């Protein structure tokens, strides 16, 4: 069993609205959504730290847009 810890998160109304909307759209609790966001953030930053670039590609036009992560 993975040990769990609790934290309080202070978000703006806009940020909390986004959490609510995304959790609803994805069918996740807010906790699961934040865990998912953390995984994605780690995945992206790991790749960038290794010198890779992260792109989004349009499925039809194949147009690519590089994801910019400002550090």
């Amino acid at each position, binding site marked *: 069993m993975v040990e769990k810890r609790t934290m309080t998160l202070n978000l703006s109304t806009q940020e909390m609205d986004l959490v609510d909307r995304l959790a609803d*759209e*994805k*069918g*996740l*609790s807010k906790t*699961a959504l934040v*865990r*998912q966001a*953390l*995984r*994605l953030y*780690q*995945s992206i930053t*790991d790749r960038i730290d290794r010198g890779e670039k992260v792109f989004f590609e349009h499925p039809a036009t194949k147009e690519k847009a590089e994801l910019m992560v400002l550090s």
Partner: protein
Amino acid sequence: MSGSLIGTFDLLDRRTGKFVEAQLVSPAGSSNVADIDGSWRPLMQARIEQLRSEDRLTIGALGESELQDAHWRWSEKIEMSSNRLDRQSFAIVTEGATQGLMLVTTAGFAKESSQHGKPLVMIDLLATAPWNRRGFDAAPRFKGVGRIMMAAAISLSVQEEFRGRVGLHALPQAEAWYRDRVGMADLGIDDTRMRYFELTEDQARAFLAQ
């Protein structure tokens, strides 16, 4: 070092007709990697060399011998996954040997129309030991490794609030199993040049009820 015990399950020993107890552990560890490097890979490589010597080393022949995964670099993948929140590895062990391995990602999104954009568990790699494969061994040993791994992926999906959704790209040698035995939706060959399959919540429930 081995991972934590997730549970014990029965595998059918085809040679004796009896069930044996197997342990599902996560994450896969150095002992599992050692089994692959020390047991799986030499067997697979020997068969590949045999095909090469007979001038029959083609994708089709590799599929008939269920060797299309022989190039998978398990040790590297498991090592890479060790510090990642979005990766998990599983191993099935019985009689002191690794009988199956699976590597999954928990940061993927579904493509099937009824669940498009919803999070899902992606199975990156799933393999049973070569001696358990009908195409590789005329008298294959244990039956049930793939089924236990698929059930583990579904359970992880449920635990992560993904409602049993699972996706994967299948090797040609495994396409029929995922489509016909697991009941996954076949979304066709995509730009990875592999066939993509996805399990919906209803399909996951039906699989577990089999």
